[in-house]
């Protein structure tokens, strides 16, 4: 098991984030600790993406506090995020990973080995030379994951990583999540797929209209939800 990260626990204290006058996160308090993945669920517009971006440090709270391992300002050295629709750099698959390693200040002489390792981890070793923009959707998602892992993160934030993928590609991603979790990386991911939430979580966090409605270990959450919204959501009803 790796050293507990400097960035954990990740703490949200009554965080509010507004955009164009509207509240996106409306008083979120959350504690994320090392261990099994934390899965964010909730309807569209609940604020899942914004929460992940704030956890990365890309968005500042309008009010409230975010701390990483107790620090308010923490450069995102051991954090990484993968976006819902990742952008490929206009270069080869391997070059994308190499770029991420360089940006993470990995020593030049170590880069090539790491590129090979990371591509192997995500199953893209055969496509190392292919221009990244020519990869399929699932392959691009895996490449984005490799780029994120290149940062050797202690916290890995994933925004709907399998939203547009077929079951085989989805399984590939979930397998990688399992592997890195075993290596000690804390994964925080959002999903629309309740089945995925059950398979992968860990801790479940239900978000609705910018607020945390309920949290709990996956087993308990799905078997015996405490709140009305959670019950409705699990039953497949629309939360308005």
């Amino acid at each position, binding site marked *: 098991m790796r050293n507990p990260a400097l960035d954990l626990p990740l703490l949200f204290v009554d965080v509010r984030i507004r955009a164009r006058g509207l509240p996106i996160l409306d008083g979120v308090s959350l504690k994320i600790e090392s261990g099994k993945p934390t899965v964010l669920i909730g309807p569209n517009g609940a604020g899942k993406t914004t929460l992940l971006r704030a956890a*990365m440090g*890309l968005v500042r709270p309008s009010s409230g506090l975010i701390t990483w391992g107790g620090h308010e300002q923490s*450069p*995102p*050295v051991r954090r*990484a*995020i993968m*976006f819902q629709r*990742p*952008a490929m*750099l*206009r*270069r*080869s698959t391997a070059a994308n990973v190499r*770029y*991420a390693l360089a*940006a*993470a200040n990995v020593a030049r002489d170590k880069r090539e080995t790491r590129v090979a390792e990371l591509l192997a981890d995500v199953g893209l070793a055969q496509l190392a030379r*292919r*221009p*990244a*923009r*020519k990869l399929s959707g699932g392959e691009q998602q895996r490449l984005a994951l490799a*780029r*994120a892992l290149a*940062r050797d993160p202690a916290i890995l934030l994933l925004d709907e990583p399998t939203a547009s993928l077929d079951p085989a590609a989805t399984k590939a991603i979930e397998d990688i999540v399992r592997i890195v979790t075993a290596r000690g990386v804390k994964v925080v991911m959002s999903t629309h797929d309740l089945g995925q939430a059950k398979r992968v979580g860990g801790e479940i966090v239900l978000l609705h209209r910018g607020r945390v409605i309920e949290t709990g270990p996956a087993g308990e959450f799905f078997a015996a939800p405490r709140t009305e919204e959670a019950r409705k959501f699990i039953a497949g009803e629309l939360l308005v």
Partner: protein
Amino acid sequence: MPDNGNVSALHLVLSGDPVLLAIVWLSLTVSLSAVAVSALIAVPIGALIALTRFPGREGVIVFLNAMMGLPPVVVGLAVYLLLSRSGPLGAWGLLFTPTAMIIAQTVLVSPIIAALARQTIEDLWTEYHDELAAMNVGPLRRIVTLIWDARFSLITALLAGFGRAAAEVGAIIIVGGNIDGFTRTMTTAIALETSKGDLPLAIGLGLVLISIVIVINAAAWGARRLGEHYAG
């Protein structure tokens, strides 16, 4: 140019007439040099404007776009006044030399390259923004990455600049003086032959000029396709 009005420009090209070749060579070196120097100045400036936010930014962009339409003859006049012996930079003795022509064309072409580079890089920035932020890439490295990754689209900007430079005559005829054997380019030679009434020769030279520009564009296009194929 030899005074045999019946000899077509094509014949001159095929026979490798040294005067014509010297004129073509000068045209190419002046315009290509101007594009190269402009690129070094204008691409980073375009990138900077694309990536930074500052008060009056919209005004700067409008101004830059407007400067794409700078009249060559006005640029020629301004550079002439600068480089004339009785002007501020007179001591450099650059008037009526190819260097003066390169300077004038650089002034003409830089806004074009800067404006197009800005647009290209801003578009790529929109695409890359999240990823580069997520990878915690610093400002200088962002500029370098965007310019590098946009290099094929930037070729188009350079070609636009080259087209402008190769086609113009107003600026270089003023600052170069159209001196036989020294500052006579294809466009200034065409102007001269037209004023001498040798229209067939002038048109012939014009066709030679257009052919050269087409060849250069084709080469650049080929380079771009090849590059894109390998780099993606």
